[in-house]
């Protein structure tokens, strides 16, 4: 017995879940974000996301590691649309990590929520547990119409059917930056590792860097009073920090009944399948 406990102790690393080498963090300034979705396509290009096709889109099987969510506020003529890019929040207390029976998803020493495709057996529990719904399942082995496959990024695995995938904060770019830094025997500098979405963002709404470095751009951005975490009440300790849109409240004709009306609208939409014929289309 003592042998076993000794062995277990050997595996335990103090501070594994609290102190990270690098603590990769992203800030998304919603005041700058215009909802243009350049990040979405940049991600698709960088990470070999499949083209799922019209039929599977209708079945609700789109794959976008980062997406832009849209929320309406108010009604015509005082309507307003809000955008919020949603991607894997790389939570430090990730609900998905406890779920995976085979450790295909776990937390690593860079504060990243890792997803190991070749370990995944596809129970999809992590996706069910994820409150941000940013985990995507390979329902099929997706193929590219020849010669579209020639654009695939050789640094990223093409996933097969039956495995879960999600945003990696462009780990291939982080690894590359770390490689370069190691050659020069130094730490990765601010801005050297940039995920595809942050690189593409035309308004510089997305900023990426190491939170452990107090001088990094993200550390500075996180000090902003507008900073918040989405669904903070779930206590997931996300590594994606949003900066609230600073727009003034909508013109004030907002009455008491407004909220009820909104809810009614949501319920009306509820009865409606999101995908016209998802039931039959699947087979």
């Amino acid at each position, binding site marked *: 017995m003592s042998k076993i406990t000794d062995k277990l102790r050997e595996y335990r690393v103090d501070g594994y879940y609290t102190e990270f080498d690098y603590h990769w963090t992203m800030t998304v300034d919603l005041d700058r974000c215009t909802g243009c979705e350049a990040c979405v396509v940049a991600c698709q290009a960088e990470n070999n996301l499949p083209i799922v096709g019209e039929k599977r889109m209708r079945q609700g099987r789109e794959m976008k590691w980062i997406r832009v969510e849209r929320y309406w506020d108010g009604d015509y003529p005082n309507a307003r649309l809000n955008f919020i890019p949603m991607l894997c929040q790389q939570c430090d207390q990730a609900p998905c990590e406890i779920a995976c029976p085979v450790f295909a998803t776990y937390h690593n020493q860079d504060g990243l929520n890792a997803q*190991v495709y070749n370990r995944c057996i596809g129970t999809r529990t992590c996706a069910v547990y994820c409150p941000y719904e940013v985990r995507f399942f390979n329902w099929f082995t997706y193929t590219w119409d020849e010669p579209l496959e020639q654009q695939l990024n050789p640094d990223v*695995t093409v996933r097969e059917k039956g495995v879960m995938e999600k945003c990696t904060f462009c780990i291939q770019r982080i690894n590359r930056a770390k490689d370069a830094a190691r050659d020069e025997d130094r730490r990765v500098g601010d801005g050297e590792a940039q995920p595809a979405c942050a690189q593409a963002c035309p308004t510089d709404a997305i900023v990426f860097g190491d939170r452990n470095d107090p001088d990094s751009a993200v550390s500075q951005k996180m000090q902003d009073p507008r900073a918040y975490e989405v669904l903070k009440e779930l206590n997931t300790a996300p590594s994606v920090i949003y900066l609230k849109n600073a727009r003034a409240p909508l013109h004030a004709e907002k009455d008491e009944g407004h909220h009820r009306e909104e809810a009614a609208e949501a319920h009306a939409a509820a009865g409606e399948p999101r995908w016209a014929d998802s039931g039959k289309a699947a087979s």
Partner: protein
Amino acid sequence: MSISVFEAARPVFTGLLVAVMVIVGAFVGHWAHGAWLNDHTPVQPIEFSHEVHAGENEIPCQYCHAWADRSATAGVPSVETCVGCHKGLSEVRGQPEIEKLFGYWERGEGIPWVKVHDTPDFVHFRHKPHIRAGVECQTCHGPVEEMARVTRRIDLNQDLRMPWCIDCHTEEQVANGRDCLTCHY
């Protein structure tokens, strides 16, 4: 009316033994396949001898596999690299294998070498950090300079499988060397 339990259970024991034999046999078969039947020594389009080039002539590995210390892949030399030397080596001209090389050269084609050491697509092995950390090429590829035709020696590197990587990373205490994301992404 009494029946010996051993007598009665005889078929059970026989059955169990048969099952054990099947399982043991399967392991033996799988091992044997890996050891002898798996093509560790594929026939290459040109009978290129590392023994001659790297062994006798002592050409450094990275003379031809020039990208090993810079890139994820070591790369195979271009036809031009081969021809560059062989143009001046009149003593071996006319040998059939050398003529094959010049055949490729004249047709302007690349040589379709068969991969000997290969990792699956979900493994992102990078040569650069290993070369820079001082790992000898032979550690993974075996004594290539002694091979007339390159072979993958399973006894040496366990068929380039993950336990072998892990062992080395553990021993050498590679920073985050056992993190899955080091190789799998």
